């Protein structure tokens, strides 16, 4: 989904990500284990859970929620707006993230798992209630769907032409708690649930209105544009949100209590919440904005009454983890906190430009060149160096971490298929008609034979590439410099062009240049792609020919066929077949999955295992004494 890119846009400065604490050593392991366990463990360790209390939570640097209406246009489609804000109050129909894995979480979903019969999907709602006393009904789902049908193309950030809701022929309530949809086309049930139904957030009927009074978007799609316009307009005054009669109608566990001009957001527990919550839980959840990682870390270290209960450590300050441990030991100044590492569910990559604007497209189009470049990407060194040990090797075109065996082929599970090997990279080039001339690999044997440079590459062509990369991320700057250095050692010249994050995105999406795109060969904005709300990594958005997020304009009919197969069946084998094929084709460069956040949690707070989808559940957090 386009939203996934937006997540990255907003998460760019988060830096880092995580992995389960398998095999932690000593006290740290004990602390991490306690963090991941329930009440029984807390009691077993002599800590008594307490009801209530206020937990303060540090928002990522330079980010704070700016939009409350859970129908985000592309401008507002971000983790901070959705996961850290809207989802606390307005629950999506299906919740993803369970036990640290990006799976559907049935217990936190508003509906039972959808039932598929032919082209018909039936969704049975659970008995949830809105805070105004109304029951959550099928009409609330239809309300959302009609809104999608009316304005998704212009105002829904996750909209993909031909995707949701274009692939839905009809939607209707067939009872108070049952919705039926008729789908166009044939899709696997898992794909439709994970990548399409995952976008729905039911809306209360109290929102079905305009400035002039009640409306009827639930019954008439034609009324929905005006309703959207009204809700969008009242979503534009953060100072009024906490008092708004519209936004105070929630079905989630939290209700907005205040939003100060400094950006401090306070939520009160919703006493009418009808979903599952722990016997013990905090009663107030406070989010605090920060201007920089350093400012947040200073506050974390200073502690005291203004301190944080849940914060994060900048990667540059992170203690290197010992072998086989997920995290290192906290410095003495943070002895009252537990350190855990969180990795987003996504694919870390940098695209190659196969588009017509790329002057080196003939070179980039050669698989042996891309393999040579991948052999020069030293993922292990990047993880041990600039990432301080907080990274995971990306082993293929499906995100490798958290490890989901259902999605990852046995080949991908084996590890890096292209470990650092400059000798092999050199052999690939010299075996295809390239020679060092003046220190730069130059094509001396043009032609399309098996030992020649390849079609479209003329004699004298130099292996000289341009790479855009996003500034502001220390590890990324080190990583691209390392790639440049490694490449130069065997005669590949890479000209690095540092740009602001948004400018790199503009380059790869072609916005900065207009059709037919910009003249880059490689571009790296740091994180690649996170799968949300497209939780199933089928590749149809990233690698299908002409897909919206196929930034490198990679075209491959064989790949298209294999991707289509993954959309029609829930079989892992179809996924693995596509994955193995495309990893062998390297349409993008694979780079380490960097830690998303190094979470510091105060010893007296239990927050459980955090989700790689980046959603948070403070209604399950509790203090101990």
């Amino acid at each position, binding site marked *: 989904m386009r939203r996934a890119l937006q997540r990255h846009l907003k998460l760019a400065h988060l830096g880092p990500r995580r992995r389960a604490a398998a095999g932690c050593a000593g006290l740290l392991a004990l602390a991490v284990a306690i963090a991941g366990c329930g009440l029984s463990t807390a009691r077993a360790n002599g800590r008594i859970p307490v009801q209530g209390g206020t937990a303060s939570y540090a928002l990522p640097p330079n980010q704070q929620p700016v939009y409350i209406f859970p129908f985000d*246009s592309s*401008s507002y489609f971000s983790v901070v707006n959705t996961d850290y804000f809207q989802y606390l109050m307005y629950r999506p129909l299906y919740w993803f993230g369970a036990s640290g894995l990006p799976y559907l979480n049935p217990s936190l979903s508003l509906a039972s798992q959808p039932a598929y019969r032919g082209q018909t999907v039936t969704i049975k709602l659970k008995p949830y209630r809105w805070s105004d006393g109304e029951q959550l009904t099928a009409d609330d789902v239809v309300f959302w769907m009609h809104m999608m049908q009316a304005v998704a193309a*212009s105002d829904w950030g996750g909209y993909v032409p031909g995707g949701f809701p274009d692939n839905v022929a009809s939607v209707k309530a067939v009872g108070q708690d049952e919705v039926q949809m008729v789908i166009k086309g044939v899709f696997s049930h898992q794909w439709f649930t994970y990548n399409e139904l995952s976008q729905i957030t039911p809306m209360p009927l109290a929102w079905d209105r305009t400035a002039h009074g009640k409306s009827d978007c639930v019954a008439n799609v034609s009324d929905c544009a005006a309703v959207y316009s009204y809700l969008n307009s009242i979503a534009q005054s*953060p100072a009024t949100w906490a008092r708004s009669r519209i936004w105070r109608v929630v079905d989630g566990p939290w209700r907005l209590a205040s939003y100060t001009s400094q950006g401090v957001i306070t939520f009160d527990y919703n006493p009418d919440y009808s979903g599952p919550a722990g016997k013990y839980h905090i009663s107030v959840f406070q989010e605090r904005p920060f201007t920089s990682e350093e*400012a947040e870390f200073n506050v974390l270290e*200073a502690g005291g009454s203004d301190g944080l209960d849940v914060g994060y450590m900048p990667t540059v300050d992170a203690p290197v983890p010992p072998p086989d441990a997920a995290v290192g030991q906290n410095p003495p100044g943070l002895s009252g906190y537990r350190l855990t590492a969180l990795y987003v569910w996504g694919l870390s990559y940098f695209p190659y430009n196969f588009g017509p604007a790329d002057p080196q497209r003939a070179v980039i189009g050669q698989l042996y060149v891309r393999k040579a470049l991948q052999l020069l990407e030293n993922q292990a060194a990047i993880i041990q160096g600039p990432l301080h040990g907080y990274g995971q090797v990306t082993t293929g075109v499906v995100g490798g971490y958290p490890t989901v065996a259902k999605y990852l082929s046995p080949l991908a599970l084996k590890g890096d298929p292209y470990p650092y090997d400059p000798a092999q990279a050199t052999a690939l080039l010299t075996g295809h008609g390239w020679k060092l001339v003046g220190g730069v690999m130059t094509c001396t044997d043009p032609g399309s034979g098996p030992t020649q440079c390849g079609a479209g590459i003329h004699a004298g062509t130099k292996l000289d590439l341009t790479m855009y990369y996003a500034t*502001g991320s220390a590890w990324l700057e080190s990583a691209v410099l390392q790639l440049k250095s490694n490449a130069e050692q065997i005669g590949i010249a890479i000209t690095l062009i540092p740009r*602001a*994050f948004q400018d790199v995105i503009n380059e790869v999406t072609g*916005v900065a240049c207009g059709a037919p795109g910009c003249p880059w060969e490689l571009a790296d904005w740091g994180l690649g792609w996170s799968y949300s709300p497209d939780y199933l990594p089928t590749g149809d958005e990233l690698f299908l020919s002409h897909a919206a997020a196929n930034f490198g304009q990679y075209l491959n009919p064989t790949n298209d066929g294999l991707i289509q197969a993954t959309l029609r069946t829930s079989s892992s084998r179809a996924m693995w077949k596509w994955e193995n094929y495309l990893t062998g084709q390297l349409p993008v460069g694979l780079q380490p999955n960097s830690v998303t956040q190094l979470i510091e949690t105060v010893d007296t707070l239990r927050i459980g295992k955090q989700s790689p989808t980046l959603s948070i559940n403070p209604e399950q957090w509790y203090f101990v004494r």
Partner: protein
Amino acid sequence: MVTYLVRRLLQAVIVLALVSMLVFGLLWLLPGGPRHALLGGAPAGSAGAAALGRDYGIGSPVVLGYARWIAAVLHGNLGYSYVENASVGSLLAASLPRTLALTVTAAGIAACAAIPAGLLQALRRGSVTDQLGRALMYAGYGIPSFFLGSVLIATFAVRLHWLGAEGPQAPGIAGVLADWRDLTLPVLTLAVLTLAIFARYVRAAATDSLAQDYVRTARAVGARPGRVLGSHVLRNSMIPVITLAGLSIPRILAGALVVESLFNIQGMGWQLWQAALQRDFPVLLGFILVIAAGAVIGSLLADIGYAIADPRVRLRPW
């Protein structure tokens, strides 16, 4: 005096108009044009795009667009940020008090300390006091604010827990000023640099004044040292300080980016920097216009200050 002020105000209006034309015109020169610059990747049919067309005259010729925008500005509408989902005016209203409280307090403290320090150094020129003062001023001038701030935080907030590690988070100038515990470290960090600059100028000006004939004459006719210092030396030494104060108004408005970032203060400098990073052009336009106005007003105030400090300065229209 009145004629002078009126003419200077008219001059200021012309300068502001030129600045506004320049910054607005730059939008049309940006890659992708003004629509892309202002809205980023938002679809053309979105509600935001429609509002944008109204506010900035997108789709109209640049002259009409400017006319529409400047008319809105004159009616108090500085535009709307689609990144922040807030009016530029509200962002300004939220960030300006924090920045003013921080920078004006720091400048005030620095000036109050710099004038006696500079005078003392000038009076004891070449002495140990002067040498020590100069060394301290050079150190204050040379030390990067992020380093000084980090050291202060590590010492007084993290280790001793005497003061807060972040700036005041209360709304409004009064709320910020009342939170002295959190205000102290960011003000101190900023004040050290300002103090060093001011004191050096005061010392140099006072040293010059002390060597002037009128000071020697005043002493020769038996004027008391206090009168010589107050009426002859100090008054003439204030000229460079007035210049610095006038020129520092845009800096005060633009905020102190590094200090604001380090101390978690969402002031104007930080807001402006974020807008630049996120290509939030409505915010950039609005804030730059306000800072430009500050620069013009600062220059005007400095001119008036010269006349008050030194009657020999004649206020000539141009």
